[in-house]
């Protein structure tokens, strides 16, 4: 009973996650975008990333907003100094590790 339920759940989820991902793959060849729309599409990565970071980063640790703030600032500073993404990630993890050691 329970395993049928879980199987159905997994199948259903697989279908509804794949559909939104797949629709553009089928339709994109049939569509021509105007210059304005192309620009709109090119801006989406930046607005989407901003929305993925804020306000979520403040709740990296739901009880301690300082964790997200410190990690985010470290990553932001290094990225601003043109460090590779991997360095930003490692440094942010290390910084948060240190913060956890002291609080």
């Amino acid at each position, binding site marked *: 009973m329970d395993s049928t339920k879980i199987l159905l759940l997994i199948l*259903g989820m*697989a279908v*509804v996650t794949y559909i939104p991902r*797949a629709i553009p793959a089928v339709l994109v060849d049939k569509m021509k975008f105007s210059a304005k729309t192309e620009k709109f*599409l*090119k801006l*989406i*990565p*930046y607005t989407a990333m901003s929305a993925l970071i804020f306000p979520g980063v403040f709740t990296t640790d739901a009880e301690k907003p300082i964790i997200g703030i410190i990690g985010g600032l470290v990553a932001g500073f290094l990225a601003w100094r043109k460090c590779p993404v991997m360095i930003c990630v490692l440094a942010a993890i290390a910084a948060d590790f240190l913060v956890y050691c002291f609080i």
Partner: protein
Amino acid sequence: MKENNRKTQYISGMRAGIPVILGFIPVGIAYAIMARQAGFTILQTCAMSLTVFAGASQMMAVGMYVQGASIITMILATFILNLRHLIMSVCVVNRMRKDTTRIKLLAAFGVTDESFAIFTTEKEGKCSAAYFLGLIMVTYTSWNAGTLIGAIASDFLPVIITASLGIALYAMFIGILVPNLTKNWRLGLLVVLTAVCNSILTQFIQSSWALIVSTLLCAFIGVFFVDLEPDKKEEPTDGQH
């Protein structure tokens, strides 16, 4: 020659995916631990990661399962949470116009917040379907490796380590985003606007909807005041093309 080129692009895509590993393995572990505690078997836990490949909705579904939600509710919630992938997928496949629909359909399976962010901010010349496939090869593998580790050995990582790894994906987004803003203050302004917009909206509507609304609304606003090619001229001036 062409074959060789594709291989190089596949490998550079894989390389671009390396920062995601640090984020996906711990999140995969966290998901698997939740799933196992909810009563999923190892097989069911891994099957979900293999077929769904969407971290946030997998965690949400498992959380709802524990609370006794109906299958329909969980599937509907997953659908809503992942509608953002529709937008992201448009941006991704729009950069693969030369490739066949079959390749695009394969690539579409790997569209996540992370692969989208890396791929769509990569330089035009460098990105291709081969690059994207290399990238998602790494993200998919690390997501499933994390799931497997978590499903088998629930708690061997000390809490302090897993907690510190929580920042990884945010740091990655920041690491990708910030360098694009230093040379384009208008784009920076747009990013701040989106951050404020999304932070306000999440107070009033579900965060998955807030993300979609603020992404689309702010990109639309940006069309009117952001200049996307300021690198070509050192000092961005309006209306020169």
